[in-house]
């Protein structure tokens, strides 16, 4: 098998991997584990699917999943995974099993002869590195939404059985409070940073986002430490990489792990009480003021 093997337990991400895989080699094979729906969805995108049915393999067991993919990888040179949390965790384990080099969080690549030149953020997002896997085999984890999902085609499903044992047991799966917002798709983002005094202030900020025709997003600590907003709304290295037409940043200091997620915005406005905030250097319009006053003022004027 000279081609590319792809795996993600999420159909939408696996479809993106098919597109990425085809950019490397025409022959793309997909893996589905204990998931007929996923297998069908992938076959409908025109690829050959190796469908594993073995109750002993839980997708939550990274070691077991890595064993399965290694078995199926046979002679393929490149395995593509999704760089969501599940995929990133799997990437290192699989690479070690295959004796492969591995790059995660890859947002784009160029195929240059037999080299796949991958772009990924480095130094917390301060830089973009171009890196190549030079070992015989490679595992590349592709950042979600970096490639368009594959369109329809007619593929096939091959059932495979494998022997794998497991040392982890899933006791319970709890849904996180659903927040269906898609900040990556928003044309306007109003981003709440830690300069926001209290959760109550979000009401005015939401009103402003609505008036501007956009969504409220936030920096990571606002979601993970303060828990004022869902993690779906985090902009940055461990959140979403956004490209809105307009981003209004309220009390955001501008550390690299954040700015990497907003630097592709067309226009950036920074509102901060500190005129020397690093964010101001990366903004188009800088207003040195208390964000709470500014939000009130904007809400009354717009």
């Amino acid at each position, binding site marked *: 098998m000279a081609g590319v093997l792809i795996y993600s337990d999420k159909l939408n991400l696996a479809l993106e991997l098919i597109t990425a895989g085809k950019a490397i080699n025409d022959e793309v094979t997909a893996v589905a584990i204990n998931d007929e729906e996923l297998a069908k969805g992938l076959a409908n995108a025109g690829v050959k699917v190796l469908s594993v049915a073995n109750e002993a393999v839980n997708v939550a067991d990274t070691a077991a999943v890595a064993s399965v993919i290694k078995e199926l990888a046979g002679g393929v040179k490149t395995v593509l995974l999704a760089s969501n949390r599940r995929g990133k965790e799997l990437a290192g384990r699989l690479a070690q099993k295959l004796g492969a080099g591995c790059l995660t969080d890859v947002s784009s690549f160029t195929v240059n002869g037999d080299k796949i030149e991958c772009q990924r953020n480095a130094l917390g997002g301060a830089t973009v590195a171009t890196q*190549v*896997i030079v070992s015989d085999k490679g595992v590349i984890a592709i950042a979600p939404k970096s490639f368009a999902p594959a369109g329809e085609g007619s593929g096939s499903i091959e059932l495979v059985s494998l022997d794998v044992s497991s040392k982890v047991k899933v006791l319970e799966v709890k849904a996180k409070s659903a927040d269906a917002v898609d900040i990556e798709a928003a044309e306007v983002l109003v981003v709440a940073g830690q300069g926001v005094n209290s959760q109550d202030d979000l009401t005015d900020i939401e009103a402003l986002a609505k008036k501007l025709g956009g969504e409220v997003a936030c920096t990571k600590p606002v979601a993970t430490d303060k828990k004022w907003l869902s993690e779906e709304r985090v902009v940055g290295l461990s959140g979403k990489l956004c490209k809105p037409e307009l981003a209004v940043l309220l009390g955001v200091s501008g550390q690299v792990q954040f700015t990497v997620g907003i630097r592709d915005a067309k226009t950036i406005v920074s509102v901060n009480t500190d005129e020397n905030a690093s964010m101001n250097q990366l903004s188009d319009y800088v207003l040195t003021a208390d964000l709470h006053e500014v939000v009130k003022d904007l809400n009354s004027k717009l």
Partner: protein
Amino acid sequence: MNIVVAMKQIPDLQQIRIRNRQPVFDDVPLTIGDIDKNALEAAVNLKEGTDANIIVLSAGNEDVEDTIKEALAAGADEAFLILDDDLEDAESSQIATILAAGLKKMDDVSLILFGEGSGDNYSGQVGSRVAELMDLPQVGYVSTIEVNGNVAKVTRSLEDVEEVIEVELPAVISVMAGINEPRIPSVTQILKAGKKPKEVLELDDIEIDLGAATIETNSNLAPESDRKKIVVKSVDELVEKLTAENLIGR
């Protein structure tokens, strides 16, 4: 019972300057990655009320011996370091091999903790690679850990769901960023840190083959940025500018 926390020395990212799109590392102080500190804090919390011993494990250049004092002050009981200036630019696969070799020299290890990613590269491979090299089960992106005898009950926090998982020990656990507030050591703790036991080995002592590099870096540049940086004096002026750009009032 030993709890091992693997920690990486990194440059203080806030102090890296960009010149001609190149990162400049001169005089940038060294520190430990933030998420690694979350992992250590998780270990310190697990230790409370038990006779567990926390070993901080790190591989890197000679400076690590100094950088790691921060971890000893913040609650690690001892350090196990593999230091060699050749390790300065070592990649994930090589560091994982060395850490695993270090772990194999320890007894009674029940938990090996990592952060979900290092502060600088954030590639998140080393923990998973070490788990494979040690043939141990692993759980990543963990937000809570509870040890009950020879199993741990942990919560893995994915984008859409939380999985409550029971895993056999020993196991490799990578913690999520920000799951706790790492303690800031007191002056006494900092002074005591210097006296805590440290085992320092060189590459020769662990007799492993680093293996060839699997990754080549062609370039590492800051993206070009040409922001206008216009200082506006009032909300009115801001509204005027944004309206002129057709960004509001459409």
